[in-house]
C-alpha cells in the first residue's frame, strides 16, 4: 500500500456561466498521505470547497474539469464512470457540509438518513442497518440514541445535527473524510466539542481528514499539513509549523498578521491586507495576489510564478523566492 492516499495533479476547473468562464481552480496540485489531516484555508471564492467537491465528483453543470488528474487510493477518480463514483462516495470518501440544517433532509427521521447510506453500501437489511446506526450515534457522542433515531432534524440542536452528519459520513468507515467548514455555523463551545470528536474518531477509525476552513485557529489546532489557497491557486503548502512560523508567501504572511491574537499582552494595530479579492470572471494575468501585494514587482503582473521548494514539503509560488535565482542568472528575467 502506498503512502500517498490522494494525489491531485494540475487540475483546472471552470464554471461556464452566462457571464463567461469562471476559472475556479487554476492548476491546483495537492498530495496527501494516509493518516494526515490536511487543512485548506482561504477566503470565500478562493476555490477551497470546489477542490473538495472535485474529489467527490460533485462539480456538476456548469462546472467542468478541464485538465489534470485526481488519484485516490491508486485509482483515477477523474476517469471513473458515474456508477463507480457512486460506489466511492459515502463509502471511501465522505463529506460533512457546512450547514447541518440544510444538508439534512427535514422530512426524514435521523434513523432513515443514517440507514440509507448503510443499506446502500453494505447491503445490510433494515434491522441490521438500524443496529449499526445506533452504534454510530453512540460513537459520535449523542445521548439517548434510541430516542434520537426517531426524531427529525428540526428537533435537534445545531451541534447535535452536525454530530448526525458526522455519523452519516462515518457509516461505512471511509478512508477520507472531507469536512467543509463543519463548525462555521456553530458556537465556540460546541465547535470545540465537534473538533475534539473528529480528532478522536480519526484515531479510532484510522481515516484521513481534509479540513476546509477560513479559521486559522482551527487549522493550527487540528491539521498536520496546510494548503493556503488564493483565487483558485494553492499559493503555499507546508506543514503546520512551517506555515505558521516560517511563512513564505506574501498572502500567508498578510493573513497571519491580520488576525487579532488572543494571548497578546499589548495592543498592536492589525496589519490589514488592502484591497479586495480578485474577480475570477476576468482573473488578471500573472500572480492573482499581485494587485494587493506590497512587494509586487513588474514580473508579478505578467507571469504566474512557479513553485519554489523552501524545504521538503514546503513550497510556495512567489516571485520573491526566485529573486536569488534571478541574481545568479539561473533564470531569464523576462
Amino acid at each position, binding site marked *: 500500500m502506498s503512502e500517498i492516499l490522494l494525489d491531485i495533479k494540475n487540475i483546472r476547473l471552470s464554471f461556464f456561466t452566462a457571464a463567461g468562464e469562471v476559472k475556479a481552480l487554476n492548476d491546483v496540485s495537492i498530495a496527501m498521505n494516509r493518516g494526515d489531516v490536511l487543512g485548506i484555508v482561504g477566503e470565500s471564492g478562493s476555490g477551497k470547497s470546489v477542490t473538495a467537491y472535485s474529489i467527490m465528483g460533485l462539480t456538476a453543470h456548469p462546472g467542468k474539469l478541464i485538465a489534470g488528474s485526481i488519484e485516490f487510493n491508486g485509482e483515477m477518480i477523474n476517469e471513473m464512470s458515474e456508477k463507480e463514483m457512486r460506489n466511492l462516495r459515502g463509502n471511501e470518501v465522505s463529506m460533512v457540509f457546512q450547514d447541518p440544517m440544510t444538508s439534512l433532509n427535514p422530512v426524514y427521521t435521523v434513523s432513515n438518513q443514517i440507514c440509507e447510506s448503510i443499506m446502500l453500501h453494505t447491503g445490510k437489511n433494515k434491522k441490521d442497518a438500524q443496529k449499526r446506526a445506533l452504534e454510530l450515534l453512540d460513537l459520535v457522542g449523542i445521548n439517548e440514541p434510541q430516542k434520537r433515531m426517531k426524531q427529525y432534524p428540526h428537533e435537534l440542536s445545531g451541534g447535535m445535527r452536525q454530530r448526525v452528519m458526522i455519523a452519516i459520513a462515518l457509516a461505512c468507515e471511509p478512508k477520507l473524510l472531507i469536512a467543509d467548514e463543519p463548525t462555521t455555523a456553530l458556537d465556540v463551545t460546541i465547535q470545540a466539542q465537534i473538533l475534539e470528536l473528529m480528532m478522536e474518531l480519526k484515531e479510532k477509525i484510522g481515516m484521513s481528514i481534509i479540513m476546509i476552513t477560513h479559521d486559522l485557529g482551527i487549522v493550527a489546532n487540528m491539521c498536520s499539513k496546510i494548503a493556503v489557497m488564493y483565487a483558485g491557486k494553492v499559493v503555499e503548502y507546508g506543514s503546520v509549523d512551517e506555515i505558521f512560523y516560517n511563512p513564505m508567501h506574501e498572502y500567508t504572511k498578510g493573513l497571519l498578521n491580520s*488576525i487579532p491574537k*488572543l494571548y497578546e499582552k499589548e*495592543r498592536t494595530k492589525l496589519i490589514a491586507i*488592502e484591497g479586495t479579492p480578485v474577480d475570477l470572471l476576468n482573473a488578471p494575468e500573472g500572480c492573482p495576489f499581485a494587485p494587493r501585494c506590497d512587494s509586487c514587482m513588474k514580473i508579478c503582473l505578467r507571469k504566474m510564478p512557479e513553485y519554489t521548494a523552501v524545504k521538503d514539503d514546503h513550497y510556495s509560488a512567489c516571485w520573491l523566492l526566485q529573486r536569488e535565482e534571478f541574481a545568479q542568472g539561473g533564470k531569464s528575467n523576462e
Partner: protein
Amino acid sequence: MNKRLVEVQNLKEYFHAGGSPFKPKYIKAVDDVSLHIDRGETLGLVGESGCGKTTIGRTIIRLYEPTSGKIIYDGVDITKVNMFPYRRKMQIVFQDPYASLDPRMTVGDIVGEAIDIHKLAPTKRDRGDKIISLLERVGLNCEHANRYPHEFSGGQRQRIGIARALAVDPEFIVCDEPISALDVSIQAQVINMFESLQEEMGLTYLFIAHELSVVKHISNRIGVMYLGKIVELANNYELIFHCVHPYTKSLISAIPVADPIQSRKNKRIILDGDVPSPLNPPSGCRFRTRCRYATEICSQQEPELKEVSAGHFAACHNLDKVQ
C-alpha cells in the same frame, strides 16, 4: 458632561413566545442586566448565540422597548422619552451587510436619508458634499454614491453601513457583529477603520461579537454573557489572562488559537451539552447544568455579580473552588 455616557440599570427584555392568554410564555432574552459605558471607551459583549447580546444592543438604542429597567444616556433617563433627538446621538451598525441596506436605494440616498430626516444639510449641494465626505471617510469614493448596494462586496457594504451610522455625527455606536459576515483579510480592514474613527471622532462603542479575540483587540472592557445574564465583566487583558468564572474559562479555552505551539500546550476545557433554551432556563445559576463546579446552592440561588478585584466582576457561588 457626564463621564458615563450610557448606563443601563436592571434591564429586562422579555419576548412573548406563545402560551395561552392566561399563562403566556416568555423568552427572557435579557434578564436583569446592569452595565455602563464611559465616554470614549469601547465595551465589548461576547457570548454564544441566543445569549442576549444583540438584544441588549438593540434595547439600549430602543429598537426594542425594554420590559423593565432603565436606560440612561448622558445623565438623562431615555427609557420613555421620544427618541427622535437621541437618534442623532446613538446609531447602530448591523451584522449582515447584505440584509441591512435597501437594494432599491442608491448608496448616496442610503447615507443621505438620515441627513434629510434630521435636516442637517440646508442645500442640495451641502447634502452632496456631506455624503461624499462620509464615503471618503470610510474608504469609498464619490463615484460610489450613485451605485446600488448589489454592486459592492461584503466589506464595502459594511463600510456603507458605517457611513450611514456616521451621517448624523453620533457620539455612541452599537456595533452588532459588524465583521462576522466578512472574510478574514477584510475583517482587519474594518476593525482598523473602527479604531481610527474612534480616535478621530471620539466615538464610544458597544461592540458585540462572538469572537473573543476580535472583541479583546478592540475593547477596553469586556462583558461575557450567558443566557441573558452577564456572568463576568472586566478589563480586556484582565478577562483573558485572569478570568475567574468557569464559563469564561471554558469559553477562552475553546477558542482555537492560531498558533500551533501554543495550542498544543493549551488544555482545553470541553463543555458538555448545549446551551439550555431561554424559554425555560435552569433555576438558580443558569450555567450550572454545564458547570463542573456546580453544587447545591447553584440550583437554589442565583449568584450576583460581585466585584472580585478592582473593576472585575463575576457572578458565581464557587469562585474559591474554580481553578
